[in-house]
Structure formats: structure tokens, C-alpha cells
């Protein structure tokens, strides 16, 4: 899985986190996750201002055959959501690490990313599946 971006951190439940500086992170789901789900037809994003907690469901991604919760990989407050997903959920299929991002969170604790996997760790985790 050479195409896993090296600058991202991952949760075992297939969410990625990118540090944007200033205590802000962007969150989405991995290429592996979108592949397993198939063509997405709807994404339910959280409300801006909502508090999110590690491991709690914060969004839902829906294909025609499945609906999966997205679990927050971090603690914090949602400061932005990807409005484009409302009309184009397929962005997650086509650009999971880019235009298909889901939300931006202001971290409650700057060290919170330490428990997440790096790209290599995530590659190993999905190789075992």
C-alpha cells in the first residue's frame, strides 16, 4: 500500500487525521475504507460547533448496501465540515485524502495524536484484515 500518504495519522477504524497547525486537524476516511464501502451515495456530517470524542460516531457514510459510522479519531470541537459532500458524496471515493475530507476539528489536547497509527502502522493493520 504505497499510496498511503506518509504525512497522515490513522485510526484502526480507518479514519485519517492531518495536522494543519495551530491545533487544527482535518479528518476523513481512508482509501481502503472507501474501497470497501463502494460507491457512496450520502454523507451525514456533524454540525459545526459539535463536540467530538475519540471513538464516538461523528458522521455516517452511506453506500447503497451499507451505512457505516465514522468514529472521531480525536477529541475536540468541529470548526468546519465539507459542505461539498452534500451534493457530491462520490468525492470520498475519488479523492479520499483530498477533496473528500469530512471535517476540521480544533483539538482539545495538542498531544492527542500520539495514540494514532502512522502510515506504516496503518498499512500493517489493513494487511492483517
Amino acid at each position, binding site marked *: 500500500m504505497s499510496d498511503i500518504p506518509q504525512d497522515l495519522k490513522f485510526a484502526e477504524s480507518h479514519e485519517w487525521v492531518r495536522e494543519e497547525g495551530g491545533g487544527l486537524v482535518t479528518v476523513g476516511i481512508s482509501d481502503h475504507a472507501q474501497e470497501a464501502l463502494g460507491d457512496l*451515495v*450520502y454523507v*451525514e456530517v456533524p*454540525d459545526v460547533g459539535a463536540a467530538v470524542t475519540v471513538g464516538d460516531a461523528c458522521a455516517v457514510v*452511506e*453506500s*447503497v*448496501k*451499507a*451505512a457505516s459510522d465514522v468514529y472521531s479519531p480525536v477529541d475536540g470541537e468541529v470548526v468546519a465540515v465539507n459542505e461539498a459532500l452534500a451534493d457530491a458524496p462520490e468525492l470520498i471515493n475519488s479523492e479520499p485524502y483530498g477533496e473528500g475530507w469530512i471535517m476540521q476539528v480544533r483539538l482539545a489536547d495538542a498531544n492527542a495524536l500520539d495514540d494514532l497509527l502512522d502510515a506504516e502502522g496503518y498499512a500493517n493493520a489493513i494487511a492483517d484484515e
Partner: protein
Amino acid sequence: MPFIPHTESDVEQMLGAIDAPSIEALFDEIPAELRCGRLDRVPEGMTEMEITRLMHERADADGRPLNFIGAGAYEHHVPAAVWEIVSRGEFYSAYTPYQAEASQGTLQVIYEFQTMMCGLTGLDVSNASLYDGATALAEALLMAVRANRKSKSRRILMPRSVAPVYRQVVETICSTQGLQLVELAYDPATGTTPEAALAEHAGGDITAVVIPHPNFFGCFEAVDQLTDWAHANGALAVALVNPVALALTRAPGEWGAQGVDICCGEGQPLGSPLSSGGPYFGFMTCKQALVRQLPGRIVGRTLDLDGKPGFALTLQAREQHIRRGKATSNICTNQGLLVTAATIHMSILGPAGLQQVARASMANTRKLVDALVELPGVEPVFSGTRFHEAVLRFDQPVRPLIDALGGRGIVGGYALEPVYPELKHCLLVCATETKTDADIDTYVQTLAALMRPASAA
């Protein structure tokens, strides 16, 4: 063997293929101590001829009384073609259209049904049915709780003019999820919900307001004001309608400044026979923005591999078979065949026919009321504008009158006092388009004869 085609030689060959000594051996995984005996209390089987005789005897015992009762189930003429077609095996004995390519008939019917219900109610999306009107209201309120994210209270304003049994069903289904029903009193003069009843709730956290149209007394509520009040107070407006009344009255999607958010109701008047209370069907339509909160199946039009249009179930991720514990509802089997009947019924009647049915029912009920209030000891109760039901007050208890009418082949109405103690000696009556002037006369004369002794006493 009834309905089992196997010959002895079939059984022998099949057991051979399975490599089992007997049919009994196929149950060898069931612990012996659990096996049951002969089912002695099940009667011996009957041939078709025998059961036909028995069922005719039972049906004859009940006869075919003249119905002057509504109270949620209305006798309308159903064109003969409707149930002739509905009873075709291809509709009747098909399953839920999960295999879309082998179910295009059922799916297209539902798509046409959805279009008709959206048209009648003036809303954007319809589901493919719920069990009945009462459960549709319960589901609509659960939906309102999911859809109204700003409201945290789960408080529902429920007019007392909503059918008592609907309020009971909502209580049964919604109380386990913490919904709280707050009753709105009706004005004893008009029989409708006055704005004053709402005033004390202004500014409070209200999730939804139920607006019956017409209400249980047959009266039309001030739907525009109620809808606007709901929206002004952060609540969703949920209409509970008789679809036949919509032939003459403004669509719920056009009530007030913004229209209602959800509309639901009992579909029985659209082609379901009275049939002792079911099967009927509940319907539900809503604004486009709420579609993902809608419970039940939805059919969509799409394209096949060759680019040809076709129909399939859609947005299934809302439903229990995919979303399981987080589904919008647990409903699976719905009332598909009754929806098929309704679609054919509405197609044959068309807009002109449904309007004529609505007018004739209104006119007949007015004739009935006019004749009844001529009787000494009978008076109208509410002044509100009526559809095809009316409340009358008698100078004596109505239960004995209903029983006596029953003995004379007339279902004379619905006694309100047990469910509305304040409506002492009150009767809810209905005369749909199926009643002739002679029927109305029969009813009035029979009732007059029955009342005399009581009035004299």
C-alpha cells in the same frame, strides 16, 4: 395431502438423495425432550367445500348492515376493477420487490402511488406505506423528533380533537422513546382547536404540532394558523389528513406560509374495503429535506445497464435490513397490496371522481344531520365547518340506541361519551356517497321509533 404435491415415490427418491432413513430423521437435531405431541386442540382438517359452508354461515350470521358510522373507517364505493386486478396472482402472491428486475410491476405501481400521494398532499416525497393511519402518525412523530434537531424536549402538541385511538397508539409506540404528548383542548362551541389553546406553549421547546384535517368530530381546523404557529415556535407541523377531504381542500404542502413538514394519514378511504378494520394502509409524505428521516420503503426511477428507465427500491440505508439498530423504523413488511388497490382506485376515479365522492359524502352527511335534528331530543353540537362526519347530542344515552339499531341492521354511529366524558349522550355519525336518500330516511325513521319510549319516560 392438502397443498403438498409429493407422491410416495417422490418421498422415497428424495430421502435416498439425502441419505436419510425417514422424514422423521430430518428432525434429529431437535432435542427429543422438546418434541411436541399431537396438537389435540387443533380441529381435524376440512375440505374446501366444508370450509366454504362454514365461512358462509359465519358471514351470513353477521349480515350486511347499513353503515352510518365512520370514526376512522369509511364505506366508499370501490370500482369492481380494483380488486379484480389486485387479486391477480402476479400482484397478490409476489414478495417485496427486492429483486427489482423481476418486480417492475410492483415497483412501478409504487412509484405511481408515490406520485399521487405527493400530488394530493402537495409535498415532495412519499414512502410506500406504513401499517395504518394510527401507526403512520406514531412514525411521523418519531420522525419529527429525528428531524427537528433544534428541539430537545420531545414534546408533541396533540389536539384532543385527534381520534382517541390514534392518541392511544401514539402513546404505545412512542412512550418507550420518551416522547411526551401534551393535549390541546378544543373549543366546545366550534369543535376545533383554538389559538388560545396554543398560547401557553408559545416560546417553549416544542418538537412538533399535530394538525388533524378534518378532526375526529368531522370539523376542519384552522390549518393555516396552526401550521404558522408551529413554525414560529420552532416546531415541525405534522398534518394528519383524510385523503378524500384533500380532493376539495388545500394541500397540506400549501398550509400557512411554508406548508407542513410531514403529512400522514389513513389510506383506507382510497380503495380498501371496511373489512373489520384492516388491512388498510398508512401513508406518509414530507418535504424533500427530510427524506432521509422518512421511515419505510421508497421506490426510485433509475436506468438499467442499457440506459433504459426502470424502478428500484432506494435509500435503503435508512431501513432495518441495512441500518439495523439505527434504522429510521423497524418496519419491514408494509401494506403493499392495499397501496396497489389505492393506486388503481385513484386512477379510475381521477380528480373529478374523487371530488365527486368527497362532495357527495359531505352532502349526504348534511342531509342526515338536517333530518336528525328535526327529531325532538336531537341537536347539533359543534358549529365548525364539517366534512363528512358530525356530532349530535341526544336527550338520552346513545349506547342503547346503537344496540337497538344494530338489531335492526343499522350501524348507527359511534358513542363519544366513553372517550370524551364531556360529550354526554353524543353520537358521531357519517353518511358517505354510498348512502341514498332512502337509506337516510330508513335510518332516521328507525331511530325515531326507537327514541320515542325513552323520551316519553
